[in-house]
């Protein structure tokens, strides 16, 4: 065995703390090591060439690179050694940046730890064996979960490329939050006008199968070949027969709060979520329907000429087979009740930014008129930024969209209510984005009064006659350094974005991780922003973190591109880490059979011994650790290899 060891300086990232020459000198003394070098940037082209040249010159059959975390550059160096004719699995990385130089204060201790990790890697590589990646074909179909703007965009891109797309939406209509908005910043495009054509295209596109009012129940398999179970919830309306005429809606006597208008109005028990809904089909809400509650009524059946009403519908399971998944499950608006000092839910004229969107919308509860709860036009309105964001009591992160949203609302107020006074309370104005700062200036020019300060509380108790009947915001204007009282008629709370309630469940179903704030974790924050650690599962839009429409669309395109690149190649290379069984040691006890979560172990009916089904094995090693006869082992993580690594550490 001939091993080459390469210690990377990573500029000063490693060399600034770890004595890299000393580590290289130490490595040279280790068994089987024929060459040990240190170099400024191992991942650079000359760095990679250095390894290749040595492989050819010394006939190396094992390589150790001590540099950053293998998560970062293991594939880079595996490719480099492969190009020079070596098996990429005869390579091992020692992470002396993330695990040593960046986390250790004392240089002497850091150098010592680096030596130990290098020694571990050398010991390990001595016992490694050449392995071959497994190639698995990729099914040319994709599952998109979530039919908001991100999901729609991703579905359309994949469908345009000729792939089969299943778009699953849990609500009766696609469109997501964007369908609820009136205008979009900073261009003031009408939200529906730019969204609706895309929604319609979803049902027109023959490559897309829309599974509306459905949820993913289960997913199994792996990248390239996922098996998905989707549950279609009963609409109690046969979608194939319903024409969307709406007669049933006009005749229905049942009433419930209208979700689309955030409970500001009522809708019928049989309803079409909003005029531009896709699919434009009615749905019955079981909880308020008189038939389901009292077994009476059935008015809808009487009036539906298409005979589409079907009270006997049951949840229906659909099985899908796809090669990749794009999660675009969106966000949840922050619940303003969690900031009780602003009195949301107590004062009728304290509303959220999303409710204001519905107020200004022509299809909203007031037909687009901005009015108070008693129908009067407001003379003065306050907009409060950062409600639920940038605050240790709620969410520490910035929700990113609220500044622009607030500015848009300030503008819309001036447009809808001539002569209105608008106060805008902000902590910092964050208008980063194309055309955003310009929009901020425009809104300032329109006479909105900008106040740098977060209101402490909102009260309806007046201290003088001018405050009578008003809502009073008590806030410190931090530029004047004085606490002021601002009486207004209406308050708009610019609420932040939170991870959706079912994010945890979704993360479990698709085995992807979440960050501390509950949003989905990307594979790499800079270089793999739409990938997840689970191969074949991609993320797009606000399920990954707060973002506005342009960013969501860009991410959706990115996720579609990742999916299409994988499908275009036609196959996916799986790591060769699979369990192996030594039949001479296997006693056929079957302990391992229950340990395998993938049914990758089966008993040979003839011999009674256990076989590994390689195609199903995911390489977790649970069976290996459980085998009482040591008959099982895991390629790439063999017991002897892990032990060698440990001996290297402890030597």
């Amino acid at each position: 065995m001939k091993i080459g060891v390469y210690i990377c300086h990573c500029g000063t990232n490693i060399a600034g703390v770890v004595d890299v020459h000393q580590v290289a000198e130490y490595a040279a003394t280790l068994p089987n090591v024929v060459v040990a070098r240190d170099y400024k940037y191992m991942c650079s082209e000359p760095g990679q060439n250095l390894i290749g040249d040595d492989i050819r010159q010394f006939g190396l059959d094992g390589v150790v690179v001590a540099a950053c975390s293998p998560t970062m550059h293991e594939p880079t160096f595996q490719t480099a050694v492969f190009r020079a004719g070596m098996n990429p699995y005869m390579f091992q990385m020692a992470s002396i940046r993330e695990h040593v130089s960046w986390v250790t204060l004392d240089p002497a201790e850091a150098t010592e730890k680096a030596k130990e990790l290098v020694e571990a890697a050398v010991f390990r590589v001595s016992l490694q064996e050449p392995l071959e990646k497994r190639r698995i074909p990729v099914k040319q179909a994709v599952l998109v979960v979530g039919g908001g703007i991100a999901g729609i965009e991703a579905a359309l891109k994949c469908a345009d490329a000729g792939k089969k797309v299943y778009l699953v939406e849990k609500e009766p209509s696609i469109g997501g939050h964007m369908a609820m908005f009136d205008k979009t910043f900073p261009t003031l495009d009408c939200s529906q006008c730019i969204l609706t054509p895309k929604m319609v295209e979803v049902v027109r596109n023959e490559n897309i199968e829309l599974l509306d009012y459905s949820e993913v129940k289960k997913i199994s398999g792996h990248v390239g070949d996922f098996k998905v179970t989707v549950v279609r919830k009963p609409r109690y309306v046969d979608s194939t027969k319903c024409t969307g005429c709406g007669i049933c809606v006009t005749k229905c006597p049942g009433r419930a709060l209208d979700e689309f208008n955030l409970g500001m109005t009522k809708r019928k028990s049989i309803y079409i979520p909003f005029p531009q809904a896709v699919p434009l089909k009615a749905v019955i809400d079981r909880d308020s329907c008189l038939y389901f509650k009292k077994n009476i009524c059935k008015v809808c059946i009487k009036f539906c000429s298409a005979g589409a009403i079907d009270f006997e519908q049951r949840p229906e399971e659909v099985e899908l087979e796809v090669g990749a998944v794009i999660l675009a499950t969106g966000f949840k608006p922050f619940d303003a009740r969690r900031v009780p000092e602003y009195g949301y839910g107590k004062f009728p004229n304290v509303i959220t930014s999303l409710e204001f969107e519905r107020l200004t919308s022509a299809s909203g509860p007031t037909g687009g008129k901005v009015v108070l709860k008693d129908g009067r036009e407001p003379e003065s309105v306050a907009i409060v930024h950062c409600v639920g964001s940038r605050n240790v009591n709620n969410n520490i992160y910035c929700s990113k969209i609220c500044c622009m949203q607030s500015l848009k609302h300030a503008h819309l107020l001036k447009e809808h209510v001539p002569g209105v006074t608008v106060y805008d309370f902000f902590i910092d104005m964050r208008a980063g984005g194309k055309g955003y700062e310009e929009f901020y200036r425009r809104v300032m020019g329109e006479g909105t009064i900008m106040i740098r300060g977060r209101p402490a509380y909102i009260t309806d108790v007046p201290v003088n006659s001018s405050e009578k009947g008003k809502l009073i915001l008590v806030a410190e204007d931090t530029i004047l350094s004085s606490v002021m009282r601002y009486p207004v008629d209406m308050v708009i709370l610019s609420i932040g974005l939170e991870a959706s309630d079912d994010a945890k469940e979704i993360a479990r179903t698709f085995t992807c991780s979440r960050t501390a704030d509950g949003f989905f974790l990307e594979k790499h924050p800079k270089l793999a922003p739409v990938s997840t650690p689970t191969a074949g599962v991609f993320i797009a839009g606000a399920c990954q973190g707060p973002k506005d429409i342009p960013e969501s669309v860009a991410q959706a395109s990115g996720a579609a591109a990742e999916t299409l690149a994988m499908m275009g190649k036609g196959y996916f290379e799986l790591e060769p880490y699979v369990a192996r069984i030594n039949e001479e040691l296997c006693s056929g006890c079957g302990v391992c059979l229950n340990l395998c979560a993938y049914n990758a172990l089966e008993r040979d009916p003839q011999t009674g011994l256990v076989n590994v089904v390689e195609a199903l094995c995911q390489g977790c090693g649970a069976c290996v650790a459980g085998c009482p006869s040591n008959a099982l082992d895991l390629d790439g993580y063999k017991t002897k290899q892990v032990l060698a690594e440990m001996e290297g550490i402890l030597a």
Partner: protein
Amino acid sequence: MSEPPRIRIVAFLCKWCSYAGADLAGVNRTKYLPNVLPIKVPCSARMDPELVLRAFSEGAAGVLLAGCHPGDCHYLKGNYKALRRFKLLKKFVSQMGIEDERLRLEWISASEGSRYAEVVNDMTTKVRTLGPLNWRREIAIEA
């Protein structure tokens, strides 16, 4: 006076959550004590009790096992399997006279860099107080 010998704690980190969590501690430049040496394993369920005992017999002063939080396992339920084995192993290890603080199982997610650092510091401090195990010398287990 000669310096006390450097104690070493072997950490078996699952590659999906805990190893990534340790990476994150690095990316965030969170400083922690240098005595915990990580070994990447595919899953906490790969942890054979034999490997833990061998670590002690080879001179480790402590062994840290870390995996994904319950319910978040990349391999569905590997961490539950690890937990069951750990409970048995823990009993066995304490009967061998090895102090409780020397063997730990922790759930550390890919986003919990600071938690990884806290666990490392806490465990190192406790194990340092106990000192080296010297199991190899005292019990002389045949490997």
